[in-house]
Each structure stands twice: as structure tokens, then as C-alpha cells.
């Protein structure tokens, strides 16, 4: 488990980027917390800098959109999913449980939905 920040430092609509290898982005989408690999699967852009709308994040470079719950792209040009990581909140601190660094299968659906932490 990796500490991200205090919950109050990640208000709804905001995101943080964890400088890990590979980097991870944590989002507060209207109160639900999600973590995904930060680097867009299309090319080199940081999804933490993307545009958040509902539980979709739009890549800042070519506007591929990813579903934070599954990591899967909802439109081109991205064709591969980003990995998702479970998030939890303990005593007001946001934690992410980094999944092992296995690449996501290109098309196979995820075995489980993304872990969600409630910010409520």
C-alpha cells in the first residue's frame, strides 16, 4: 500500500500523480476514488492531467477517454486498457494498492472491476 495524500487534499474533480515506476494517477470523481496507470496507453501523456467527467477521464493529448472503473478506453485513439488499482481511505489518508506490474491484456476484460474507495 502506498500513501497518496490526505483526503481533504484530493477534493472532487481533482487528481494526483504518483511518481512511481510506472506512474499512477488517483482521481476523486464526484466522491468516488479511483487509481489507474497514469500514462495513456496510446502515447505519452499523463492522464492525471486529463479532463475528468463522471467516471471518465479524457486524455489531454488526443482525447481518448478511459473508464476509471475498468481502465478500458471508450473511444479511439486508445485501444488498450490502463491498469486499475484499488484505493482505500484509512483515518483520512488515501492509499493505493498497486497491482503487480503485469501488462493488461489488450482486449480481454478485467477479471474484477476496479477497486473503489469511498470518499464519503
Amino acid at each position, binding site marked *: 500500500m502506498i500513501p497518496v495524500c490526505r483526503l481533504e487534499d484530493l477534493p472532487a474533480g481533482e487528481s494526483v500523480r504518483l511518481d512511481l515506476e510506472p506512474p499512477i494517477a488517483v482521481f476523486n470523481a464526484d466522491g468516488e476514488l479511483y487509481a489507474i496507470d497514469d500514462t495513456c496507453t496510446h*502515447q*505519452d501523456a*499523463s492522464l492525471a492531467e*486529463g*479532463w475528468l467527467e463522471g467516471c471518465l477521464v479524457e486524455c*489531454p493529448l*488526443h*482525447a481518448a477517454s478511459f473508464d476509471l472503473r475498468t481502465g478500458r478506453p471508450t473511444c*479511439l*485513439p486508445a485501444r488498450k486498457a490502463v491498469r486499475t488499482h484499488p484505493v482505500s481511505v484509512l483515518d483520512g489518508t488515501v492509499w493505493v494498492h498497486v497491482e503487480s506490474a503485469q501488462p493488461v491484456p489488450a482486449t480481454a476484460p478485467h477479471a474484477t472491476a476496479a477497486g473503489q474507495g469511498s470518499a464519503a
Partner: protein
Amino acid sequence: MRTITVIGASLAGLHAALALRTQGYDGRLVIVGEEHHRPYDRPPLSKEFLTGALTADRLSLADAEEIAELDADWLLGTRAEGLDPPSRTVALADGRKLSTDGVVLATGAVPRTLPGEPLAGVHTLRTLDDAAALREELSRGQVRVVVIGAGFIGAEVASSCATLGHSVTVVEAAAQPLLPQLGARMAAFCADLHTDHGVTLLTGTGVRALHPEPGRSAAADGGRGRVGWVELADGRFLPADVVVVGIGVQPATGWLQGSGLVLDDGVVCDAGGATPVPGVVAVGDVARRAGHRAEHWTSAMEAPAVAVRNLLAGTTVETYSAVPYFWSDQYGIRLQLAGTTSAADTVRVVEGSPEDRSFLARYERDGATTAVLAANRPRPFTRARRELSREGGLAPV
């Protein structure tokens, strides 16, 4: 339609083919491409590919599985030489003639070149082969590079060459780089990016001629001689080992002369990509859609879905009117521009500052925002770009 032929196997052609299948077209699909490569992405050619950060295998626009699913006949390394709408045939350079019911024109654009015999060491940059040749020359130790033209491609090449440790001079005929695209204030910002990174920028002077290196056997360079000097219009001579000519592109329409299509800085088509000739649509950099021709990656990717819907419908049932969007990476800075700027616009920096190399600026005319430009401000830029789309009041210039 039983056969549809896509001419041009790059970004726009591939996305036309993908969209045809997505929209249920299950007839024969033929893709003709002059290059030998399967569709690959061009923007990295002047950026990460040139610096070596990205290799050619990472540029592919479709993997083996997607190619297989497309179920198309690929005629690569094959140039189309002519289109004859009455007989519905496409003539290929190897003498074959293809019969087809529908045609998607996606031949893109080709770089402008300087007049005169080409010398070794002088490059343009459009294709993977161009980029590989340039990269090869840049890998032989430190060289003196002269980039002619300070547009987006020229600036990116200069930036990549500076990153590789070469000594770089950029020559621009206009008083400032990107002046018509960005206006004086933002052009000054772009000029500073060059000088910040030790690149010499010479503006307000054109190039008169390129001269070979004296005393070197031309036989070593295939009889052409190798470039040694760039002569400027103001009489100065710049020593050069490698010259990159980045003076813009022109739409690849030469092969369509006599086809009956209207050619005027591109294939003239309506806002849905349909040409006046039934069964023929145009997409990407070659298309002059509703009076405007874009040279932008995003529209080359998005507009084909609309054009092929109109092709399948036999008439224009949908138009493509997204706000133009373009990005450029230079000197570690990501510039993003959405909308249509004009010389009459007032430029207002609304976040950050050019001095800090991070800002968002709005272009305004008659109280309305016509465009937004950002440097290293991706998130506010995306918000502004979306607002611009929602307002939707942008008339193409």
C-alpha cells in the same frame, strides 16, 4: 457498394477503413498506399523518433489483430496514378486498373522543396523513411544543422537536433516564427524557445541557394555533391553539414489531374467530405472541406467516420465541424492550439505567463473567443477546448 477503394494508407485512410467496417460495410475493401509501410503515426517523426526515444515499431497505428479484423486487400508500395469516375476505375503505377464502386481519397500532403538539384545532406520530413535517413545522419557525431522554416515541423526538428547536442540554426523568411498562425506576441514566445536552448534563429531572411561542399568528390554522394553552405537572401553564408527544409506541404493531388474532381489547394469537398463526383469522398490533409484544409492529426483521425457514412449513404447526411485542434512538442514544452486564429484577434493570457513557459491564452474577436493556446497547461486547455466546442460559434476562416 461491393468494392470500396481507399487511396492513401496512413492516418486518414486507415480510419476510413476502420469506420467502414464499424458502420457495417462488409464488401471488398482495398487499401492502396505508395509507402511500403503499414499505417504509422507521423507526429513522433520530428519528436521522439528523431531523438531516439521511440523506435519505428512503436509508431504503428494498428496491430496485427486489428489489421486482420479489417479484412482488407492491402496494395502497399503501389502508387495510384489516376482516377476515372465514369468507368469507376483507379489506375495504378504498375499498370493495373482497379474497378471500384466507392473511393476514399486519403493521399495526404507532400513537403514543399527548394528549387534546384537536390544535394546529399538536404532533407525534408514527412515519411518514416525520411525520418530514418535524417536520424542516420544525425547519429554520426556532432554536426551543424540548418533548418529552413520555423513552422511547427521546423521548430520540432530544431528542438530534437538541439537535444541530440548538434549546433542548430533556424532560418525563417518572416519577421517572426509562426506569425500568421499565432500572432506577434505568441510568435515572440516561440522565438524565445529557440534561443533559450542555444539555437540560433535568423528571421526576416529567405534562402537564396544551397551550395555543395567544395573540394569533395561528388562521386561519394551519388554524383550529386553534398551540401556545405546555405546562402541567405541577404548575402550571408551559413556552413551546414545537414539541412532540413521545413517550408510547408502541399496536398497530394497531382495524380488526380483530369479526373473531373475540383482541385484547389486540396480536393474540394463539402462539410461532410463528399466531392461533387458521386461515390468519391476525401479525408485528411488532402481534403479541402467546406473551404478549409487542415493539416491536423485529430481531424485526419475523426473526419473519416463522417465521410464514409456519407459515402455509404450516397449523399451527405452528416457533416464534420469539430473545432480544429493541433499540438506541438518543442523544447520540452507542449503547445496546444484549438480554434481558428486571425490577425485581428486580441490575445489575452488568462492563466500563468509566457515568461514561466506555462500559460493559457485566449484569442478574442468582437467579444467572442476564437481560439485558445496553451503551453504546458493541459488540463485548463482541455476545459477551454471543450467550452469552445460547446459555444460552437466558430466560423471556419
